[in-house]
């Protein structure tokens, strides 16, 4: 994974709570064996009509949303399915951070493993940001601080996930480095309790 240390961008605001991963990318786009090329599925049923034409009123289709790397959404973002495709689709459309007051657990884990930053803000800061679409923000990952205008808001981030982001540490490499401990655990635990043929 590439290191993620700072994100600077204007924001797109999607002022909805409980945005589930079926909205982020509907299941019919998961019929793939690749993690690439999922951008066209992002919010597909909100972005496009039944004929595949962009819905001009949807926030991601507004000209001012072009180039935004930060998505500000309502609480409980990413609930529902465990599909990591939701993260890949957001990244394919250029998003580097999602801001909310709460994230679903699996979505948060998936995001961090791909370098998409989940920024969990307090309600007041979130409200200020959501009320001003287009606001330019700076997110410092090492400091775990999001700032805009004169405001500075700290956000919680699991220390190991932050370490991995800032240093570009790959989690699988880290786990592989623990091989001897895993082998010792297996030796102590004994045999596998079944044989599948």
């Amino acid at each position, binding site marked *: 994974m590439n290191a993620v240390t700072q994100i600077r961008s204007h924001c797109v605001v999607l002022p909805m709570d409980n945005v589930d991963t079926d909205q982020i990318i509907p299941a019919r786009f998961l019929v793939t064996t690749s993690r690439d090329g999922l951008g066209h599925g992002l919010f597909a049923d909100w972005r496009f009509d039944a004929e595949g034409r962009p819905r001009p009123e949807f926030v991601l289709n507004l000209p001012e949303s072009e180039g935004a790397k930060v998505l500000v959404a309502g609480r409980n973002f990413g609930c529902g399915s465990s599909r990591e495709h939701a993260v890949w689709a957001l990244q394919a459309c250029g998003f580097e951070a999602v801001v909310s007051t709460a994230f679903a657990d699996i979505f948060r884990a998936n995001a961090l493993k791909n370098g998409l930053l989940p920024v969990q803000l307090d309600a007041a800061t979130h409200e200020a940001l959501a009320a001003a679409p287009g606001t330019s923000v700076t997110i410092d990952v090492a400091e775990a601080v999001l700032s805009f205008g004169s405001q500075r808001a700290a956000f919680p981030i699991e220390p190991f996930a932050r370490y991995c982001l800032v240093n570009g540490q790959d989690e699988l490499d*880290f786990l592989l480095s623990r091989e001897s401990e*895993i082998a010792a655990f297996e030796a102590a635990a004994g045999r596998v309790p079944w044989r599948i043929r």
Partner: protein
Amino acid sequence: MQGRPRTLVDKIWEAHLVSAETAETPAVLYVDLHLIHEVTSPQAFAELRKRGLRVRRPERTVATMDHAIPTRRGADGRRAPAEGAAAEQVTALEHNCRDFGVPLFPVGDARQGIVHVIGPEQGLTHPGSTIVCGDSHTSTHGAFGALAFGIGTSEVAHVLATQSLLQRRPKSFAVEFAGALAPGVTAKDLILGLIAQIGTAGAAGHALEYRGSAIRALTMEERMTVCNMSIEAGARAGLVAPDDTTYEYLAGRPFAPSFADWDKAVAQWRTLPSDREAAFDRELTIDAAALQPMITWGTSPGMGIPIRGVVPDPGGDASLQKALRYMGLEPGKPLLGRKIDVVFIGSCTNSRLGDLREAARVLRGRHVAAGVKALVVPGSQQVKKQAEAEGLDRVFREAGAEWREPGCSMCLAMNDDRLLPGQYAVSTSNRNFEGRQGPGGRTFLASPTSAAAAAVTGAIADAREVLA
């Protein structure tokens, strides 16, 4: 071991620590069983190939096909083959399992089925074990007192390569269902009732432990229905402590401990329930007797009401207003009597033998209403076989419902089992999200009993009245 009283999750967690968590690093948690399927595994195997890694414990990994495969039968009476990109996923899974030595229960195998139906049914789901799968409904296996949770595809690669995961211990949340469910109220109603009360993020960051006399009285299949929807309350996992009901279900299943190992295993499993004095981070008690048959009216599983209730007033809540618009409903109006187009009985929530018996009880001697399409999709080949041995397939067919091949089907509309835009469905699945069952489709979640009642009346109905 003496010491501080521990919860069921504490005991499982501590028994699976390769290394404990510190402030800086999460725990390395060992995984006993890794279930995989065609949709969330191909990119993980690609990662292993890219890095030149093998599957560390193929014997702790089991694959099946369920999400994207068709459930229709062709003219020859056999299941229609997957087509296009879905066929590529199926082929990729076959190749990956062959190349990495992973056991596969493919289409055509007597053990194939929805991943969360076959694990328990084959006796692979053991109390006290850790189980993961690239699927959020992995929480289903918690019904056996296993710590089971859904993971993303990156983590699927982690488990394939190391049989371990980096995890922080979830917080604990005990939900006690006191008393007994009223007649006509099912396990599905119980869990929909809980989610309506605590909301879809109500248990975020927590592992739920379902307790109390109403939970003890449930069959294993019913406990699976409850634990299955833990994720719909935002929980990382949902567990029921194992008891004699659990052991009776598991005894004699193909991959359950056998003979001499059985008694030892049961003795060990009996030590799993939370200690009497164990403290939970959160606790909630619900009066089970007060629960009603439930149905959802909106686009989130938390938007549930008693089936005889009225659609709530959204007030100034934009999400509720949006849900009402999408569903084409008016506040203050009852749902009873509202016409529906499709009934779906199936999914990892409600596709087991007991669910099909419940649906058949309503459909026997009755007929699916004119203009309604009813789909019954058994959860596995084993469920299908048992249902057919009991003649349930005949009950469904004679009632005018379609009897399909096992798979996820219309729960998530990855194959061609989909709602058409604007259609209303009563579904026994787990998610009523916008477009979940097909773009523009509108879903009412309910129990198999309520779904069958809707099928015969062509409208949302109280099964207690239909059966009266």
